[in-house]
């Protein structure tokens, strides 16, 4: 275990990193003792990845110092990090499927390798740490857990003093995860420090000695997770000082406009999430927020709602009582469904095309921008100009390309384009992701006004502050399942945090979390 007051293996002081329009790390301090398993806890977008990339030399900090065993160091690139004694296992593997285990390991190491000797070392290390691997198997024949073992063994062969694990269990079965925990505990006993990144509270409580909590790029607290409850960890992770909603307390709720009924969709790509019996309704005048950690089925749900993925069952989705499960995006749009995708460039807009063309993209049919089969350039331009004016899009002109706009301005343009189509139902993914505060509150107000004028609004976001600010009800998506939507007044942030952390069924598991 950690040896109390010695020199930390790694210490960060005042690490700061800014991206254009966003402060990803704001003076973050972190201390990891030798042999300590240290959790880095935070929501998506809290700044965990940025911080880890700085430690591993992928990014360079704008400000701040890094100390390694008490000495100040610079880590300009991952190669230097490995030399220093830092190893990292990424969430997504970088393996060549058609090559063997040993070949893959050799590729990740610096310099030339004696393959026979390396194969022996792989066997030795993998047996020592309970990570059985056959050095001559081809990677494509391995399970996800085995692939992760390759990455871990690759790090261990370099005798690291600090091992960084980025959400390692997100791809593992519970059994594989338990095995990996044993390995990590053994490494910790041998004096290797581990920086463990996760948002899964149960895991952190079971494994880690210390936890540093980040929120919105800021250092919040350092604590001993074994002394905390899942509830108190969630509170720190999510923050309690949430703004009150800006809209009238209980809006007039009208008839159900969007109804999703037993929606099941199988993912069509690797690492995709299967949607499992999703049920919800959104009424006229209401904003339903769907919270959840990225990669829990949001992308799949959005595609199913927009019509980019069609469901087998027409009745799985209905719009104003009409079954639209098998309709394509354009048919749904003509019935009054508008949609703001998560990815602004390349999904919500064509980056290289002008704003007029991007206005035409989703508006051509509902805004009557066609004239006997030809594009009505005049109407299209008027429509684009209306969007720019009414939604305060800062651009020199509508003949500039979408990718010349800043993120916030492009988002205002896309939201404006959808809102001006007078939708009955609007689905918005991450409405204010990477958007500055002014544009964000403008977009929020726009959505609230839309709901108050009788539309049904569905917002999918990872930003709980945002959901609490604008939603009337909140549901949580986790591993392709959606929790029951609860009125804002009835649900607490802790409950949401637990649901997000994958604790299903609020009953027993919550109790278990309290028993420490």
């Amino acid at each position, binding site marked *: 275990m950690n040896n109390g007051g010695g020199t930390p293996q790694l210490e960060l002081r005042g690490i700061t990193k800014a991206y254009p329009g966003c402060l990803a790390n704001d003076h973050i301090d972190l201390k990891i003792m030798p042999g300590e398993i240290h959790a880095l806890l935070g929501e998506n977008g809290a700044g965990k990845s940025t911080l880890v990339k700085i430690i591993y030399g992928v990014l360079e900090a704008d400000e701040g110092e890094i100390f390694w065993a008490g000495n100040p160091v610079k880590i*300009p690139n991952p190669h*230097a990090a490995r*030399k220093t004694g830092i190893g990292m296992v990424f969430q997504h593997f970088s393996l060549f499927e058609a090559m063997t285990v040993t070949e893959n390991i050799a590729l990740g190491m610096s310099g030339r390798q004696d393959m026979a000797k390396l194969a022996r070392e792989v066997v030795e290390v993998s047996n020592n740490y309970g990570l059985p691997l056959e050095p001559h198997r081809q990677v494509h024949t391995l399970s996800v857990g085995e692939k992760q073992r390759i990455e871990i063994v690759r790090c261990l062969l370099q005798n690291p003093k600090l091992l960084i694990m980025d959400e390692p269990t997100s791809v593992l079965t519970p059994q594989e995860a338990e095995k990996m925990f044993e390995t990590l505990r053994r490494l910790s006993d041998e004096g290797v420090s581990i920086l463990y990144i996760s948002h899964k509270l149960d895991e952190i409580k079971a494994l880690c000695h210390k936890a540093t909590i980040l929120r919105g790029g800021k250092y919040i607290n350092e604590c001993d997770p074994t002394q905390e409850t899942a509830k108190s960890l969630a509170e720190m992770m999510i923050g309690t000082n949430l703004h009150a909603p800006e809209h009238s307390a209980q809006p007039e709720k009208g008839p159900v406009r969007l109804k999703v009924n037993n929606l099941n969709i199988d993912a069509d790509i690797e690492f995709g999430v299967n949607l499992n019996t999703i049920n919800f309704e959104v009424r006229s005048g209401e904003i339903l927020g769907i919270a959840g950690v990225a990669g829990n089925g949001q992308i799949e749900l959005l595609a199913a709602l*927009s019509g980019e993925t069609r469901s087998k069952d027409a009745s799985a989705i209905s719009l104003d009582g009409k079954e639209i499960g098998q309709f394509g995006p354009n048919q749904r749009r003509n019935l009054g469904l508008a949609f703001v*995708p998560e990815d602004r460039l*390349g999904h919500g807009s*064509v980056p290289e095309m002008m704003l007029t063309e991007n206005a035409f*993209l989703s508006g*051509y049919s509902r805004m009557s921008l066609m004239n006997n089969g030809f*594009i009505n350039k005049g109407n299209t331009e008027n429509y684009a100009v209306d969007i720019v004016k009414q939604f305060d899009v800062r651009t020199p002109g509508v003949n500039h390309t979408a990718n010349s706009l800043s993120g916030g301005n492009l988002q205002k343009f896309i939201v404006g384009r959808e809102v001006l189509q007078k939708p009955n139902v609007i689905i918005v993914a991450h409405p204010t992701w990477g958007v500055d505060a002014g544009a964000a509150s403008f977009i929020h107000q726009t959505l609230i006004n839309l709901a108050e004028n009788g539309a049904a609004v569905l917002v999918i976001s990872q930003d709980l502050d945002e959901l609490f600010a604008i939603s009337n009800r909140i549901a949580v998506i986790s591993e392709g399942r959606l929790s029951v939507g609860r009125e804002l007044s009835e649900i607490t942030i802790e409950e949401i945090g637990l649901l997000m952390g994958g604790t299903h069924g609020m009953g027993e598991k919550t109790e278990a979390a309290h028993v420490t």
Partner: protein
Amino acid sequence: MLLKIEKRSEYSKAMVYLTPIIALALTVLASILLFELLGVNPIEALYQFFVAPLDTQYEFSELFVKATPLILCAIGLSLGFRANVWNIGAEGQLTMGAIVGSSLFIYFPETDSIFLLPAMIIMAAIGGAAWAAIPAFFKTRFNANEILTSLMLVYVALLFLSVLIHGPWRDPAGFNFPESQTFSESADMPILIAGTRMHFGTLLALLAVFGAWIMMARTLIGFQVKVIGEAPRAGGYAGFSQKKIIWLTLLFAGALSGIAGFSEVSGPIDQVVPSISPGYGFTAIIVAFLGRLHPVGIFFASLLMALTYLGGETAQINLGLPVAVTGVFQGMVLFFLLACDVLVHYRFRLNISRKATS
């Protein structure tokens, strides 16, 4: 790696249109070197290549004769390229178009209806489109790479032509030469200017340029092609079907290439022979890119490439240069064009800060 290639954050729009000219200049420079190595006076060679072929009105009209199939094929291909559909089998579609279009005359040689020629043109379009439908089917159904399938079908089409022309289609009165009988007047493309070989196909090519221009600039289909090519996910979001665009662009390219092949057979060649095209279908790929995938650009690029065919012949006759010079020349144009395009969008950087570790 010492050299690093990185994407430019912003690239010059003007350069995109200047690159064809820069590429041409570089090609001329490189060919001067090439002629020097071949022991030919470069100035004389360039004159023979680019100026001599345009001396007389007849030779000028020949430029359009050669450009016609290039324009037709390249217009079709460019639509696909805009949509990221990489049909490189225009040569095969051209051949099948020529075969299917000619079949009407071969099996009904006595017909002298005025509807014969229009019917043959339509048949040619259908034949080319049907040939292009094969890669479209495999692409949309099995996600088979259209580059491979369309290219392989070129050789199938050429061999099929060979079978026909050495067998059932051989002219009984043709002394066993592998040629069909010459087309009757009602199966011939009308000549536009007396005394030249410029034929009705050139008008069809100009019509294709105009039609494609309108389609890309003003219609929903053209818009869909551009969106699917540039941002397929945005296309899906707008409800545009990628499969539909794959089918459409391939069928369109096939039909135009088919007409190109038939207009050669029924125009300048006047009979079906084992070799219909000196690679127009492949040169059209260069033409499409040299013309920046824009119909008007393609028109001018076709004229230029047609000139290299004529120039190659003149240089062969007057200077004794091998006719392969044409191919070399066309290859250099494409090479320099692609190289310039890379430099417009990317830049090279020397990576010196390697040893700043420890």
